[in-house]
């Protein structure tokens, strides 16, 4: 570092702020890019696209229905990765996301199908219940000071067990179907299960950009709501993280919660609200699945919490908190979806998917570790 000597030699430069600006511009753009947390995930996504374009380019993976296929899978994971990312930046984990997906699905299905509630009220009930559980999860973590890993692991089992036990108790089965006939015409259910932009896809089919069936309806009938939700939440969450006071508190909380507390950041509130946000996105995920398939199943969302964490880590977030990117997490989810579907399209044995995932995770962690050293090492 050359500052100290410069200070001694020419203190007059200290009053000239613009001289600092000039030195900033000398750093090449690509070098500044290296310090972005989402860089790894972006280049990784590019790499898998190139790979599958070469190996599965003619298999239908990049036809309109193929694209919609992996986009939907990525968006589903993206939803929970976004909230898991914010929570991880704040220095905590939520291992109960996957169980919450199953539980929330049952919370909105059983009242609607068995108790005759209007679908919209069942959905609101599920969201309220999920937020309450998220609050409880966060409250226990901040009040006991226990690692969130353990607390949310407990909730992983409690919620999964409750989902199975309660659905057997109320319905005597673990898969509750027939939601679609209740959901039809419901304004709130349409926000999760339907598609939008039908006219656009009809038009695209008419001009021949996407293929259509013999009767003229396009093979892709619209953009699934889960993609819309993922996109909206990504934009909002990223904006909140990078451009609001609350976002600054998230970084501060995960970076050093003692320092954050000392300058007046409401650390506990930040953490609890983020646990509630992960429960919220898990419920959105559940709602999209319930209204897409017309059923809820007690085993929905198994292992999703780990997939979300993998996507977040591939997206450049540090497991220790204080550093990460929502956009990166979304690219992490995209890599996930593309590879999962791509392996199916290329006809490779799908067992290899997990091998690939593990390897990706390891590479991402090594890469992130290196970046953190670059970012925090003092240059004396």
């Amino acid at each position, binding site marked *: 570092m050359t500052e100290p000597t410069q200070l001694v030699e020419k203190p007059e430069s*200290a009053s000239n702020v613009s001289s600092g600006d000039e030195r900033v511009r000398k750093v090449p753009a690509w070098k500044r890019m290296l310090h972005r947390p989402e860089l790894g995930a972006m280049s990784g996504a590019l790499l898998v696209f190139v790979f599958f374009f070469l190996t599965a380019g003619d298999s239908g993976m990049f036809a309109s229905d193929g694209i919609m296929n992996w986009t939907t899978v990525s968006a589903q994971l993206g939803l929970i990765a976004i909230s898991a990312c914010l929570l991880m930046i704040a220095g905590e984990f939520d291992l109960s996301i996957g169980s919450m997906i199953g539980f929330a699905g049952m919370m909105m299905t059983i009242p609607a199908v068995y108790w005759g509630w209007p679908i919209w009220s069942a959905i609101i009930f599920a969201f309220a219940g999920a937020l309450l559980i998220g609050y409880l999860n966060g409250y226990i973590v901040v009040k006991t000071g226990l690692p969130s890993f353990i607390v949310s692991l407990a909730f992983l089992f409690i919620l999964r067990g409750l989902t199975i036990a309660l659905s057997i108790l109320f319905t005597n089965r673990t898969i509750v179907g027939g939601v679609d006939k209740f959901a039809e015409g419901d304004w709130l259910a349409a926000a999760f299960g339907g598609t939008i932009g039908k006219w656009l896809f009809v038009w695209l089919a008419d001009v021949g950009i996407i293929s259509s069936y013999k009767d003229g309806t396009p093979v892709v009938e619209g953009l699934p709501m889960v993609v819309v939700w993922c996109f909206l939440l990504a934009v909002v969450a990223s904006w909140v993280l990078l451009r609001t006071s609350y976002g600054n508190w998230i970084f501060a909380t995960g970076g*050093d919660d003692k320092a954050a507390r000392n300058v007046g950041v409401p650390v506990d509130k930040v953490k609890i609200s983020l646990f509630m946000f992960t429960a919220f996105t898990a419920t959105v995920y559940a709602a999209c699945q319930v209204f897409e398939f017309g059923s809820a199943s007690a085993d929905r969302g198994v292992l999703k919490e780990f997939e979300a964490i993998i996507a977040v880590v591939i997206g450049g977030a540090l497991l220790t908190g204080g550093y990460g990117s929502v956009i990166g997490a979304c690219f992490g989810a995209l890599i996930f979806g593309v590879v999962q579907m791509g392996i199916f399209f290329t006809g490779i044995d799908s067992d290899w998917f997990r091998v690939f995932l593990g390897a990706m995770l390891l590479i991402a962690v090594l890469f992130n570790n290196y970046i953190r050293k670059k970012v925090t090492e003092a*240059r004396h």
Partner: protein
Amino acid sequence: MSEFIIELKNVSRYFGSVIALQGINMQVKLGEVHCLLGDNGAGKSTLIKTLAGVHVPSEGEYHLEGKPVVFKSPVQALDAGIATVYQDLALVPLMSVTRNFFMGRELTKGRGLFKRFDLEKANDIAQAGMAEMGINVRDPSQAIGTMSGGEKQCLAIARAIHFGAKVLILDEPTAALGVKQSANVLKVVAKAKARGLAVILITHNVHHAYPIADRFTLLNRGQSLGSFLKSEVSREDVLEMMAGGQELDALTAELEEFSRLDATA
């Protein structure tokens, strides 16, 4: 309006049966650097925590601008313009200069749902605030983990000044720093003084304290050995009065004895 911004009158602080401070009198004036000197265990920490509102005096009075006050929490003291920079600095290494500068007190624009952190303006203010303290920040969006210890100290001080501190309490700001960085921090202290702030500097390094201080208070085993204007005492006097002064004399004598023995051997 009193001549002094802070005045302690016969302040004592007990923790159970332990007498941490006894009968401390101390005056702090705006535009002055007040050095608090003492060896480990002399009660420096208790004294600054009392000043910062962490501890309430067990006995005696704490006057701020001539009026007696009782701070029940550090936040109240901070609101009254008494800012303390502790050794851990309350900075987050992974965050940028600007984000640290405004941590917990973000500069916002817009309203309601669109209320947002005004990063552009905040960048300018942080950079200007640091420049005023003599630190040229090349890129306010750089993580402060890349900065040196002295620069981090300066950032914490600049932050306190920006948010309206009238009295700045610095807890061993040069303790972990090299010579050059210490000099930079002391320069920042001088700048704060020039801006009319009162600075309370805690140190056990007389060589750091003496050049910059206007007034000294010496503590030994929970009691004040008195406050002195710089004109009244020499560096050697100060060193002598500090706990360890006699010990250092003894050590010097002992070393001389050794070298004499070596010479005769």
